[in-house]
């Protein structure tokens, strides 16, 4: 856990005298950072008011940007320095302690021009999404001038590791499903069911343990299912953020593995109508996609703004290097509409979105017995591989999923006291699964309808000295019903939670503390099998459950200087067992396995520790390393049973939900090395070791070690071309050797490791004042035949082969004022 082991790496690229200083100050840091864990934190929990500044405000105009202007080397405060904000034509002079303040700012990206006698004038770009503190460091005139680009993304706001996907990086994922897009972040992988269904895995955890926040509302679908992909249109997002590790205090119980925040950009504030048009096409599955956005602001009523957005996506059968994968097409139609009214002291927003998709599932994967699975594994390829052709048609088995979200948000600036925000969300998730049937029928094999109402009220108090934070309440009401199959029972759930989070910042030290209490009530309605097994003699039972627990966070961040920050965090979170884990009952057709819930399960409790180091804002080497250890008590998993399940329709291997203590230990490393300002190397490494402590064995289905490296060359402005880039790289995924060794748990051994060659290139063309962004990216360029351990259909077929995707983005300006 000692971050100092990275030092030799850094020293290679630093000047000798800097190394000495860094080493010295690191010892201090380590000491301070470690002592933080031991010493009780003053007043943190005693405070009742608190709040993270990372509110999902869309039109937020009561923000404060403050900080100190410092000498880069001595770290002395510079008194009387001028900080100028050109966007608003406002200036501030630093006080006797070097502090500057800008109040009543709206969200957005601002430039800070800092001047001071005897120092180089410097310009900083700051992205303001919540009230923030930003220290600005100036270099003395005598120094050799260097361009140090400090952007908001490199500076950390939280001690716990968070990583974002924005700008060009995000643009390069357009056309991919949400889970696939997030793979660009170290520590994030996916759990797949063929080429169409993928969901994010953070540090080995997924489904119920990873929370998704769609536009500030906690996404509630049937996320427990490993073959249930998130019902979110990634085209809505202008930023995707991943919080790695337990984040239960702010976002509620369940967030044991992490949180994914999908954020649309703020509604426009300047009058006029503008838009955005995406066009995509790919080889292989011949995907065609388009997404368009139109947004505007009324000149006569400036606080009022609106946005309309829609996406159409369609793909056919994907192709491995050798054959087409039958029935792996998809269709997607999404739209969203938003209207906002925003004043300095109050505002509101209404948002509605619909996500609708049909997802084909590999035809071959519908089987009816364990023997069928054994035959498929032995055959090594789908039985119809030679005759499979391309088509956009989707047949059974497929899923039809529709997700509606209505969100209403309001905020009030309560004078000097702080800001109050209220969010209500209604979601309706309709999931229909169409299995292969013996007789033709238009009806689904299973239909689940989940209605969820969420409310959240957060009060962010004004900074009290060095303390800022918020306090909040939230509730979730859920109701699930089914038709055609009782795999998952009827249930109603009510969750209520209160939380408080505070942040204390002084000088180089940043401390965070938070506490949360949640109560969850669950009522299940299901038919219990009669003792004699007859269908007619079943009785309706209505068991109820009550869960409650506390989540907490204690974290510290220390800024050593020299662009080096250390973070330490200890978090706890818990998760009540889901209705599926308690009461599901039925056969999974892709694995011919009978799954049975366990009504006696208790809550999972997670304790998450993380130590991280960030080295940022440097000319050559930048990077971050995070070491984590997650201990989960009563980890719920489906354990294979010694006796098979004898059902009327046949005999199947049985899995039953069981609890054990488990640990997840790992490291995420992201490095960027600039050979020249134009040429850079990006390297990401994700390592994970997961153990079941009760059986003293490896945990099954954990992501293997993953290494992602790419070389990127950027060309500046050349005639009517700008932002031109070329990137070549590859992903190496090792064979998962850490698989359960005690007892037969998997149907086939973990597949071999593989390397995929990737490349992309893009540019922005300027036709007069109209820019057009064009890019092409290629995946699996060597057409490698491979299989992924975390693809549930790996028993049946290979992964898709080479794929080229062409992207076109046209920003539109309809009117100007």
């Amino acid at each position, binding site marked *: 856990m000692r971050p100092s082991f990275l030092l030799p790496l850094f020293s290679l690229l630093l000047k000798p005298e800097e190394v000495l200083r860094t080493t010295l100050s690191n010892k201090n840091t380590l000491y301070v950072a470690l002592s933080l864990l031991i010493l009780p934190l003053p007043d943190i929990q005693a405070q009742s008011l608190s709040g993270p500044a990372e509110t999902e405000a869309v039109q937020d105009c009561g923000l404060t940007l403050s900080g100190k202007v410092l000498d880069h080397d001595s770290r002395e405060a510079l008194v009387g320095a001028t900080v100028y904000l050109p966007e608003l034509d406002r200036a501030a002079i630093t006080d006797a302690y070097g502090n500057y303040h800008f109040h009543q700012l709206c969200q957005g990206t601002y430039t800070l021009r800092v001047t001071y006698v005897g120092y180089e004038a410097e310009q900083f770009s700051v992205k303001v999404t919540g009230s923030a503190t930003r220290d600005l460091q100036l270099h003395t005139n005598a120094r050799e001038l260097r361009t140090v680009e400090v952007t908001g993304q490199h500076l950390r706001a939280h001690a716990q590791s968070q990583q974002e996907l924005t700008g060009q990086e995000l643009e390069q994922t357009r056309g991919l499903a949400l889970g696939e897009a997030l793979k660009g972040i170290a520590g994030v992988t996916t759990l797949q069911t063929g080429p169409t269904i993928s969901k994010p895995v953070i540090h080995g955890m997924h489904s119920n343990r990873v929370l998704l926040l769609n536009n500030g509302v906690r996404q509630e679908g049937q996320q427990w299912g490993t073959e249930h992909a998130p019902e979110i249109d990634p085209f809505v997002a202008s930023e995707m953020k991943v919080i790695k590790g337990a984040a239960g205090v702010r976002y509620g119980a369940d967030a044991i593995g992490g949180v994914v925040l999908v954020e649309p950009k703020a509604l426009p504030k300047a009058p006029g109508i503008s838009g955005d048009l995406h066009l995509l096409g790919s080889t292989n599955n011949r995907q065609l996609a388009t997404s368009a956005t139109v947004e505007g602001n009324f000149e006569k009523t400036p606080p009022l703004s609106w946005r309309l957005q829609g996406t159409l996506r369609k793909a056919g059968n994907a192709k491995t290097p050798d054959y087409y994968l039958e029935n792996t097409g998809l269709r997607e139609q999404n739209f969203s509409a938003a209207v906002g009214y925003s004043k300095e002291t109050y505002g509101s927003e209404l948002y509605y979105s619909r996500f609708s998709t049909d997802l084909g599932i590999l035809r071959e994967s519908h089987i009816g017995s364990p023997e069928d699975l054994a035959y498929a594994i032995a055959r090594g390829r789908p039985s119809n591989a030679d005759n499979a052709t391309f088509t956009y048609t989707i047949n059974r088995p497929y899923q039809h999923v529709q997700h509606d979200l209505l969100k209403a948000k309001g905020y009030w600036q309560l004078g000097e006291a702080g800001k109050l925000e209220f969010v209500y969300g209604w979601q309706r998730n309709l999931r229909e699964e169409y299995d292969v049937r013996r007789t033709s029928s238009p009806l689904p094999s299973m239909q689940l309808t989940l209605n969820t109402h969420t409310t959240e009220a957060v009060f962010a108090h004004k900074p009290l000295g060095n303390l800022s934070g918020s306090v909040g309440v939230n509730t979730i009401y859920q109701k699930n019903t089914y038709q055609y199959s009782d795999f998952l029972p009827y249930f109603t759930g009510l969750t209520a939670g209160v939380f408080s989070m505070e942040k204390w910042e002084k000088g180089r030290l940043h401390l965070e503390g938070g506490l949360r209490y949640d109560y969850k009530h669950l009522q299940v309605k299901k038919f219990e099998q009669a003792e004699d097994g007859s269908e007619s003699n079943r009785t309706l039972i209505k068991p109820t459950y009550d869960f409650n627990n506390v989540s907490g966070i204690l974290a510290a961040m220390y800024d050593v200087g020299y662009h080096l920050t250390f973070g330490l965090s200890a978090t706890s979170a818990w998760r009540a067992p889901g209705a599926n884990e308690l009461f599901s009952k039925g056969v999974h057709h892709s694995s011919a396995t009978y799954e049975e819930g366990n009504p006696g399960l208790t809550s999972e409790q997670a304790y998450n520790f993380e130590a991280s180091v960030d080295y940022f804002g440097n000319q050559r080497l930048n990077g971050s390393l995070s070491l984590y250890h997650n201990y989960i008590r009563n980890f719920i998993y489906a354990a294979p049973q010694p006796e098979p399940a004898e059902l009327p*329709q046949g005999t199947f291997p049985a899995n039953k939900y069981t609890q054990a203590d488990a640990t997840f230990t790992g490291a995420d490393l992201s490095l960027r090395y600039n050979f020249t300002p134009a040429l850079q190397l990006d390297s990401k490494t994700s390592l994970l070791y997961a153990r079941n402590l009760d059986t003293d064995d490896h945990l099954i289905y954990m992501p293997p070690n993953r290494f992602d490296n790419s070389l990127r060359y950027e060309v500046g402005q050349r005639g009517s071309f700008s932002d031109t880039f070329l990137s070549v790289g590859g992903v190496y995924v090792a064979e998962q050797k850490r698989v359960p060794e005690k007892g037969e748990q998997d149907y086939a051994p973990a597949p071999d490791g593989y390397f995929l060659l990737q490349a992309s290139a893009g540019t922005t063309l300027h036709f007069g004042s109209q820019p057009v962004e064009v890019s092409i990216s290629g995946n699996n360029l060597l057409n490698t035949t491979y299989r992924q351990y975390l693809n549930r259909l790996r028993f049946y077929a290979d992964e898709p082969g080479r794929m080229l995707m062409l992207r076109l983005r046209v920003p539109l300006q309809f009117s100007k004022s």
Partner: protein
Amino acid sequence: MKKLFRPYLTAFLLGALLISTASCDDDDPKPVEDSENITSMTISLEPVSTTKGIDPAEATYTTGTTPTLQLAPNATYDATITFNDNIEAEINTEAEDHELFYKASEDLMIVQKTDFDDNGLPIGLKARITTGNSGETGELTVTLKHQEGLKPDVSDETIGSTDFVGKFNVSIQ
């Protein structure tokens, strides 16, 4: 500050409670009727030649049972497979998509399918079974496979998905 907050909180909590109670209507689930499932398989054996005084035999398999067929040695039977709810009729109309597979040791019996679909490929709802010598015992497994669009020219049990597996103990005396 706190005074401002308190009435709001109360209203909010009451609102949340209202939502939850209002939505608590008493709709209970109805039992799911699954007419899809095959739950039993019956094999009926008629001796081809009635002159030898061989009795017909019949056994029905459901999950968890071990039905026994008592057959005469070195005899030839015409076997017919039926299922619960007359499902064999459905299989016959979609014969191009189905096939039944018989698995037993050659010493126990030799099975030859005698019915064919429109493409001339065997179905297996009907078969001719020739038994082995007296004293042989063993298991006969009959697997109904759904091979929609996949049924090959040469019968292949490894293709498609299994709809039902019937298991019978056979003893030849």
